[in-house]
Every structure is written in structure tokens, then in C-alpha cells.
């Protein structure tokens, strides 16, 4: 198990040396995944809640589609977006291919079904008595909806965290639409894939350790936000 110790050592050295290139890669990872997460949450949260709370035709089919897309292979998402954004594709005029924007789009496509599906599940899982209690206390239909969604917040946050985990760990889609260009579209996961390809296993492992550490920090942060949120939910309700 020497290689793990070696990996930790290298990760430590990389962090201590404050390598500029590495910092750029970490920053881009966070920006791309963060933006994709925010966009997919802003879109997916209302969508999931809407599917859960409203009577709509073919609801079951819609849910099945969403659940299926949760398992969309990143490479397929990447390829689809590549063909869409390619100069020869319908959106080629936008010139987005091989830019961080294309990567944001790809990760949004991956994260949206997760946020939507898990929001739906969380909202559906709220005890029906909450709706009744809310109604008896004089809430308007919109306030009732808001109350139910607020009750589902832990489940929803888990969905957002799951989506974050997926996009931070994802390499297939951003490799295709980002191109892994040094200094432009290289992020943690594509850098890890590249170093593995080059046979720099310790470096790749070190980058993996750093990526995990960052994910851990963000998860702890979200957890704290969640705890704080539970004390102050008067503001929500």
C-alpha cells in the first residue's frame, strides 16, 4: 500500500507549494461544477416540486424518464452536446465548444435530472398531514406549496449534494465538450485522467486526494448551512 502514502505525500507537496497551475485547475473545477449545480437547482427544484404537487398528464412516464436520465452516461451527454455545439451542429454559431460554457452546459444536463428527481421524491415523501395543517392555518395555495417544499428541504439538499458529487466526479462529458485544453478547460477530473494516461500514477492519485478533500469541505459546509437553516426556518415558512 506504499502508493497511497506516496499519493498523500505528493498531494501535500502540491498543496504546500501552492502550484499556480493546480490552483487554476481547482478554481475552474469549482466554477464549472458550481455554476452547473446552481443552474440545475434553480431549474430542477421547481420542476421536481411541480411534478410532485400538480396533477399533470403522464406523470408516471415523466418520473420514469427523469429517473432514467439520472443514470445518463456522461459520455453520452457529452457526445450529444458536442454534436449540438459543434461548428457543424445546430448551435455551432455560438462558438461554445471547447469553452468552460460547454462544460457548464454538459454538467447541467447531468445534474438537472438528479435534482429534479430527488426533489420530486422528497416532496412526495412529505406527510400529507402537512398540507392539511397548512390549509387549516390559513395558507394560500402558494403558501401551502412553499410549506411542503420547505418540509422536504433535507431531501432536496441531499439531491443537490448528490448532483454536486456527480458533476465534481464526472469526466466523460467535460472531456468531450471541454477538450481538456491546458490552462483553458482542464479541470481536476480531466487532469487526473490525463496523468493516469501518461502513467503519472502518484500525481494522478494526489490530484484525486485533493479533489476528495475539496468535496469533503464543501459537503461539510453544506451540512453546516443545513443545520443553521433548520434553526431559522421561520424565514422560510
Amino acid at each position: 500500500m506504499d502508493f497511497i502514502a506516496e499519493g498523500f505525500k505528493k498531494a501535500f507537496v502540491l498543496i504546500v507549494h501552492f502550484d499556480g497551475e493546480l490552483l487554476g485547475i481547482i478554481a475552474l473545477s469549482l466554477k464549472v461544477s458550481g455554476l452547473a449545480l446552481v443552474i440545475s437547482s434553480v431549474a430542477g427544484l421547481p420542476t421536481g416540486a411541480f411534478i410532485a404537487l400538480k396533477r399533470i398528464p403522464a406523470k408516471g412516464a415523466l418520473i420514469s424518464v427523469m429517473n432514467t436520465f439520472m443514470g445518463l452516461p456522461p459520455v453520452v451527454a457529452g457526445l450529444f452536446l458536442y454534436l449540438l455545439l459543434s461548428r457543424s451542429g445546430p448551435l455551432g454559431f455560438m462558438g461554445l465548444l471547447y469553452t468552460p460554457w460547454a462544460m457548464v452546459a454538459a454538467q447541467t444536463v447531468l445534474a438537472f435530472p438528479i435534482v429534479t428527481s430527488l426533489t420530486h421524491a422528497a416532496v412526495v415523501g412529505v406527510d400529507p398531514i402537512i398540507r392539511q395543517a397548512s390549509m387549516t392555518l390559513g395558507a394560500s395555495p402558494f403558501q401551502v406549496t412553499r410549506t411542503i417544499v420547505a418540509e422536504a428541504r433535507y431531501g432536496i439538499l441531499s439531491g443537490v449534494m448528490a448532483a454536486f458529487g456527480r458533476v465534481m466526479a464526472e469526466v466523460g462529458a467535460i472531456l468531450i465538450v471541454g477538450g481538456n485544453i491546458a490552462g483553458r478547460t482542464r479541470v481536476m477530473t480531466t487532469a487526473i485522467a490525463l496523468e493516469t494516461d501518461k502513467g503519472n500514477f502518484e500525481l494522478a492519485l494526489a490530484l484525486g486526494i485533493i479533489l476528495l478533500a475539496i468535496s469533503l469541505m464543501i459537503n461539510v459546509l453544506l451540512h453546516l448551512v443545513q443545520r443553521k437553516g433548520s434553526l431559522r426556518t421561520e424565514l422560510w415558512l
Partner: protein
Amino acid sequence: MALTLQVTDIMKSYDGKAALKGCSFVFDSAGVYALMGPNGSGKSTFLRICALLEKPDHGDVSYFSGEGVLPPDRGLRRRITMVLPRVGVFNTSVFGNAAYGLHMRGYPGRETERRVHRALEAVGLVPKQRQNALTLSSGETQRLGLARALVIEPELLFLDEPTASIDEENRSIVEEIILRLKGEGRTTVVITTHDREQAERLAGRVILMHAGGIVGEKPKIE
């Protein structure tokens, strides 16, 4: 009393099974009414229909005030409330739960705090107001449900089995509050219970229900 509730010949069935078979009643004076009957007699369904939580299959539920019949809109709904048998607390602090109805009505912060404090004091939950409401015991939960209803100062208050699954101490706290509301005379309280002694203790009028129908009434001499 400002609000009069008139229920005319209501019927309700679930999956073909009749729960109510044509009930009529007029709640026209302030005080405490008790709907009494065994389990399955239809008293909860009757209460939920009165509280506008459910619509009857047939029949009419009308609220009147000085001006005549009131439309069953939010304006009316906000003058009445109901405490459900399982209460249904929100996953937030005791304070947040109690303040809910006022938040929904857009009350300013100070007024909210004043009223919530008074309601929590009445049910003895002030020391626990910062605590998450889901951590309360079943008796405390029932008291919180009552406080949540009291803050909005309803003209009609429906209580579905308010003491069914709680201990003696909590039961007497709840009953005390009901009796105080009765004494203040501003609120009409309608409770369901299957406890004859409790009905006698609390209510001015006891409505007897059996198998989906109102079978009698016992006015009590006060």
C-alpha cells in the same frame, strides 16, 4: 357570536362506504360543542367538512355573519381553524410552528411575537420555544397544535380528538384552555370525543352521533 355555521343534509362516502348519511345542524351560539360517538360514527368526517377541509358529496355547508352567507374563500377560511388529531407539526422550532398562521397572514414581527408568546404561555411551552417541534412529546405536540390555532384568534375552532392519545396531565392542560376559551366567549369551539365525561365537563351542547347520523342532542343546564 359573529359567525353562524349551518350544515344541511350532508352526505359523504369513501370508496362507496357511507360515512355520513344526511346530517344537519346549526352552530349558532358561542360556547363549546362536543360531537360524541364511537369510532367510525362519522364525527371526524363531519368535523372536517365543517372546517372546509373536505367537500360533502351532497348537502350544504354555509357560514353566515351579519351580512348574510359568506363565500367559502380564503377570507372565511382564515376566520376558522382546526387542530388535526395528529397535529402535523412543521419541521422547525416550536416558535416557528406557533407563528405559522400569523406569517401566512403577513403579520408584522412584533405583533407576531406578542401573540405567539401569549399562546405558548397559555399551553406552557414558552421554555421550549427554541426547540425543534418534532422533538416534543405527544402531549406537548397536542398543546402546540392548540397554540398554533390560538395565535390566529379564530372565531370557530375545531378540535379533532384533542386528548385521544395523551396523558392525564396534558389532558387537563388542554381541557383548561378549552374551558378558558368558553369563559372568554369570543370563540366557538367544536370538539370530537368518545369520552362521555369529557364531553360533559367541557361542552354546553353535546351532539350524539352514530353510524353516520346525528342521533340526538343533550343540552346541558348551566
